[in-house]
Structures are given as structure tokens and as C-alpha cells.
């Protein structure tokens, strides 16, 4: 779901070595290096930062706060991180967030990448790149590629995404914790609303609960000023739209989980139908299944009258180091589900002018029906 991005993820930011010890990253790096070697590539250059950090965090644990972070991963030799351009004030803290020892700043991204490659003895040949086409603005792209003109650059974004799509056990653990925090946040919202608070006060209560429980980031959409649409929080308000309908996404140690809350909802026909649709999606979401069939299962269950709103807000999709990973649950999709994918399944039902009902689940794909990663609080 598209959410309003803050200028800064302002919650808890640590390298939790209990959740993600060095050996976890050694395994991830081993897998990526194997893929590079098989393709005759001598190193990988990943560009990201800010909102787009998936590949950087997967390899290093670092979830950068600011734009422009680079990971240089040679097939042989120590990796390095360029944690920004100029300055260097943040370097001591960045070093506490990653297992990578060589953390530095550079006068420019292109100069920094070329220098590290040379330091690792890589003067020419095939070098894998990720994030270049998607993240780099035109001028910066030209600067970076200009400094790497002696190399054959091979974009491997899709291959890295495919590796990340199948979640490892420790990743599932982090997502379950993110889901637990999202549940705590939802409970705080429901309680604030139950005490007579406005929808806006419920949102603030959810954010407070999430950050105090250890969320790095939290995003909330809610029926704030109008009953029938989900908006981000932009200002205090005394408006009470019943039922409270909220979408809460939490990032914990880089990993996202999301939850939907509709309160009070139990007993309404829309709620019953939404829950049936969600159950149908869980049943259909299994290894080898067509993504379109998962969408079809939900749409059949909810009926034509709810189809338009459900599709407008989306039926969910892949989730992990990004809130929106592939595949998107869509009736037109031609993708297949793979084992150990994680999906956010979602249904928003309603008619124009009426409060919506929003339900969701966070699931892992396996041989049988998808299993929920969420546990009741």
C-alpha cells in the first residue's frame, strides 16, 4: 500500500546481533558471491539509501537514513560501504549498524566506487550493479557510470530481488516481530478510539505505541476526515468516524509487516465477507499457485459490489525489506508463488460514502495454505 513517507525514519535503529548475527550475513554474502562468480562478475556495486535500501540491508544490515549509500562487494576481498558524500560525522554510528568494517565517505559516489574497486585489485572486467537505473537521478547516473567506464557493468537487480524473495528463517522472525508491534499499535489505536478519542488521536496512539515498542518506522492510513477513504495523518482533528478503519505498517530492523484494523466491526456483513475473502486468499496462496488465482479467490468471495474498492486499495503483495515487493496480488498477474515468499494479503470493502472494512494477514507461502506470521497479542 502506498503510504506517506516521512523525511526520516525516527525510531529504534540498531544492529541486533541476536536476531541477525554475522553468520547470517556470511551466508547471504556467500549466496550472492556464488551468483556473481557463476556470471563471471568480479564485484557487485549496490546503490541505495533512504527509502530504497533493500539490497543494502540484505547484505550489510545497514538501513541508511539518508540518500546515497553504496555497498561494494568484491567476489574476493573485504566489502566496503560508502555511507555518504563528504562529511563523515555519521561514520562512527554507521559502524555500529553493520558487520562491514570498511565504512567511509567519498568525495563523490563514482570516485568512491572506482577507488574501492582499484583497492581490491579490480581494474577491469565484468562488475555487477544494482540500483543504478532505479535509484540514481540522471546527473548522478552519468557521474557514476563515467567513473566506471573501464568496467563492463551488468545490472542484476532482478536476480538480487529473486534471492531476497525467498525469506530465510531469521528474516521471518524479524517480520513476525514487526507484525507483533503492528498489532500493539493497532490495539493502542482501538483503545484510544474506544475511550472516545477521534480517529486522529487513535493514529497518534498507534504511532506512539509502535515507536516505544521498538519500531524503526511506522506508517498509518486511517479514515480520518472522511468516513470512506484512508488518509495519512496531517493534522489533529476531533472527527470521529465509526468504525475506525486503519492500516498500520511497521518496519522493525529493516523488515516490514502490516496490519489492518476495523473497530468495531465484528458482526457486520461487510466484515464477514472480507474475512471470507481473506481466508480464500490464504487457501489459494501456496507454492506454485498463480498469483492471479489468489486474487480471483478473493474477488469471487466478496462479490461484484465490492470489487472496485478492493482493487483500488489493492489486494496486497510481497513484503519484506520493502513494504511493496513483487508479486502484486492482481487478477491480471502472470506470476507464480514460490515457497518461503512472504505476502501481505489485504481486503478493503465498502461503498462510496460508507465507512470501509479493512482486513489483512501477513503470511508465508508453503506447500499447503499460506500460514500466518501474526500471533494474537
Amino acid at each position, binding site marked *: 500500500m*502506498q*503510504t*506517506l*513517507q*516521512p*523525511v*526520516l*525514519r*525516527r*525510531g*529504534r*535503529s*540498531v544492529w541486533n546481533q541476536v536476531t541477525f548475527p554475522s553468520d547470517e550475513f556470511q551466508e547471504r554474502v556467500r549466496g550472492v558471491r556464488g551468483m556473481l562468480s557463476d556470471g563471471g562478475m568480479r564485484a557487485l556495486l549496490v546503490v541505495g539509501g*533512504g*527509502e530504497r535500501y533493500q539490497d543494502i540491508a540484505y547484505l550489510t544490515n545497514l538501513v541508511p*537514513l539518508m*540518500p546515497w549509500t553504496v555497498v561494494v562487494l568484491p567476489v574476493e576481498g573485504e566489502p566496503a560501504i560508502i555511507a555518504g558524500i*563528504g*562529511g*563523515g*560525522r*555519521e*561514520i*562512527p*554510528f554507521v559502524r555500529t549498524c553493520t558487520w562491514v568494517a570498511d565504512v567511509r565517505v567519498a568525495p563523490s559516489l563514482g570516485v568512491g566506487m572506482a577507488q574501492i574497486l582499484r583497492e581490491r585489485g579490480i581494474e577491469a572486467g565484468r562488475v555487477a550493479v544494482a540500483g543504478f*537505473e*532505479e*535509484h*540514481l*537521478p*540522471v*546527473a548522478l*547516473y552519468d557521474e557514476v557510470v563515467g567513473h566506471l567506464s573501464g568496467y563492463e557493468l551488468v545490472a542484476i537487480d532482478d536476480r538480487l530481488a529473486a534471492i531476497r524473495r525467498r525469506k530465510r528463517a531469521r528474516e521471518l522472525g524479524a517480520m513476525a516481530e514487526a507484525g507483533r508491534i503492528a498489532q500493539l499499535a493497532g490495539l493502542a489505536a482501538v483503545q484510544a478510539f474506544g475511550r472516545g478519542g477521534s480517529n486522529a*488521536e487513535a493514529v*497518534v*496512539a498507534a*504511532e*506512539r*505505541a*509502535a*515507536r*516505544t*515498542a*521498538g519500531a524503526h518506522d511506522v506508517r498509518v492510513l486511517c479514515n480520518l*476526515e*472522511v468516513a*470512506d*477513504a*484512508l*488518509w*495519512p*495523518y*496531517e*493534522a*489533529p482533528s476531533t472527527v470521529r468516524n465509526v468504525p475506525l478503519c486503519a492500516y498500520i505498517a511497521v518496519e522493525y530492523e529493516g523488515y516490514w509487516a502490516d496490519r489492518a484494523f476495523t473497530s468495531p466491526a465484528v458482526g457486520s456483513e461487510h466484515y464477514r465477507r472480507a474475512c471470507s475473502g481473506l481466508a480464500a486468499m490464504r487457501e489459494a496462496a501456496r507454492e506454485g499457485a498463480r498469483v492471479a488465482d489468489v486474487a480471483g479467490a478473493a474477488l469471487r468471495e466478496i462479490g461484484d459490489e465490492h470489487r472496485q474498492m478492493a482493487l*483500488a*486499495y489493492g489486494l496486497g503483495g510481497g513484503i519484506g525489506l520493502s513494504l511493496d515487493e513483487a508479486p502484486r496480488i492482481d487478477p491480471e498477474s502472470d506470476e507464480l508463488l514460490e515457497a518461503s515468499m512472504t505476502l501481505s494479503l489485504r481486503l478493503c470493502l465498502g461503498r462510496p460514502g460508507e465507512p470501509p472494512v479493512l482486513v489483512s494477514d501477513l503470511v508465508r507461502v508453503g506447500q499447503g495454505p499460506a500460514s500466518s506470521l501474526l500471533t494474537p497479542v
Partner: protein
Amino acid sequence: MDVYERRLSVLRGAMATAGLDALVLYNDGRYHFTEMDPIYYLSGFKPLGPHAVVVLPKDSDPCLLLMPAWDRQRALHRSRIQDVRIAHDFGREYARLIIEMGLQRARVGLTGLSRQNRAIHGLLSQPFEQRPLAADALVEEATAVKDDLELSLVEKATEIAERGYAYLLEILRPGARECALVGEVDAYMRSLGADDNFLLMSASQHNLAVHAPTDRRLEWGDILLAEISPSVAGQFTQICRSVVLGRPTEVMREKYDLLVQAMLAGMKHCRPGETAGRAVSEVDRVVSAAGYGKYTVPPYMRTRGHGMGLGSVAPGNLAAGSGFVFQKGMLFVFHPNQYIPETGYFLVGEPIVVEEEGGRPLTGRIAHLDSVE
């Protein structure tokens, strides 16, 4: 003429000077503390992304084209631009809009270049026969001086920042976790009307810099650093504060006061006609005279401040040698934040407006080494 009409007029004036027939303002839904957001500035609407544009012809009404479709109602509610359209297929509907507005042969300025990868830049340029000109600087310059709405919003945001800091002093105690403090203070400021916040808070017995909050529980003797930067309707402010848990030592007070004096000395030069570099050199002169010249450069500090604003973040970073000339009504945070070897890193900073007599702080009380005992 209301403030949004004036903003249109200001941009159209800049377009006329540059010989532009139209401006295309682009936003991808990513927000940065030190980057302007001309769509919010011109429309009062903050897009979610992934793509939104405002097309502003020189002599007809502007149009806002945005995604996702389900955000249409909010856009209609918030936007001062009347013509609001939804894009299901952004590239196709953007091209159709340019044709409908008859702008294919226009001389066009394009903003938001730092948010455009090659594919998006190509898509935004493609409908035009002439390659669009980079227009971020044009908008920055035209909107460098804050209007009444921006100033009233920054005053409100500064009030929220100071109340947030007061709340922090109220709840701060040894044993509190950094991230929990941020959760509490942030929520408090949200309840007062902050729509976003560049909030960094961390503590140590000898800080090297401020950083994102961790799990760490505060101890007596810590110095808590707080960079508190709420925004109201998109307009940010910033205050930089330092708090000692326990009784501050004489050395702490002396060194903190040195940075406050440096800030006040620099602020006097934040007046029309002076360069940003002159104000920075004054800060560095005071700090260097006390024997800390080595620490007036990175990595012991970052900058001495930076502009803030919706339409413009001019004068950009306040750095040594900056030749940018202050104009009356510019807004920025002035912060001689830096490392001092005896005490560690301190945060000292105020939001100020450029006036004839120098920078006028918007805060009710300027930075002071506070303590919780």
C-alpha cells in the same frame, strides 16, 4: 489575492523572465528535510507517490496529475489547484495531458530532477519537441524569500518544537530508552499538529555526533542531544538542544556557552547583503579563538546550518566560503553544532529569519545547556 494565487504569480514571473511557456513540477512521494517540494508549495497537497506532477502553463490554469487513484478524495479536499486528475497509467496520462494543454511545442522548465531516474526523466521529457530545461534553481530563487503563510507555519512549527522539548525535559530520566523517548516526544508533537518530524535523539557520556535512537537506557552523566524538527503543513523548523542528566560541570557550561556565543556572533551577520560564508566564518572565528579551530571542519561538525522551506531551501547549506547572499525574509536553521574534545558533541541551534539587524530567532528561548537533576 490569497497566498496560493501570489505563489502562482511569483512562479509565473520567474517563468516570464526565463522565457518559459510552462513549468512541470515533479514529485515521487519521497520527502527530504533539505529539499523543496514545489507541488506542496503550489497546491497545498502532499502527494503519496509514486508519481505526481503539476503542469503550470504561463497563461492558463495549472493541473495536478497524481497517483494512486484512491487518494483522489484527499487531493480534491486539500489542493488549491482545481483541476485534479488521477493517473492509472502515469506515463500515458501525463503525455495525454501535455497534448490536451497544447504544450508539445512549448519551452518548458522541469523541476524535481533529483527525484528522476533516467526512465522517469525520459518519460517527463518525451511529450515535448524541445528538451525541457532544468528549472529547480529558477523555482528556488523565485521562492527564496518566505511568504506570510510560510512564516506563520514556521512559527507554529517552532512553537511545537519548543513544547516538544519542554515535554522531553519533563519525562527525561535515567533508565529511559532512547527509542522510547523519541516515541513519546514525537507522539506529543504529532498531537500538537506536526505532520512530519526530522527528529534525532541520542545520548552518551561523550558524544561524537547525534544519531538515530537506539535501545540504550540513559544513565546519570549522559548528555542527551536532540535535533527537533517538526513541520506544519509541510513547513519545517529545527531547534538543536543538549541536556545533561545530572549536574553539568563547569567545563560543560563553559564550552556550551562558547558555542552559544559563536552562534550569536554569526547570527548578527545573517542580514541582507552579507554572504552565508561571512556568517559561518564569524562562528568559526569565535570557536577558533578558544583554541578549537581544528574542530570547525568535518568530521567534527557537518554544516553551520541550512535553509528550510517548501518552495525553496535557499541559501542551501551554510558552509565556509559560501558566496550566497542573504535576502530579507529568508529562513534557515543556524546551528554551530560540533564536537569539543573536553565534553563531546553539543547541539546548539535556532531557526532564524533574515532581517535588517541580523538573524532573528523564532524561538522563545535560545539554546541553553539544560539539565535534569
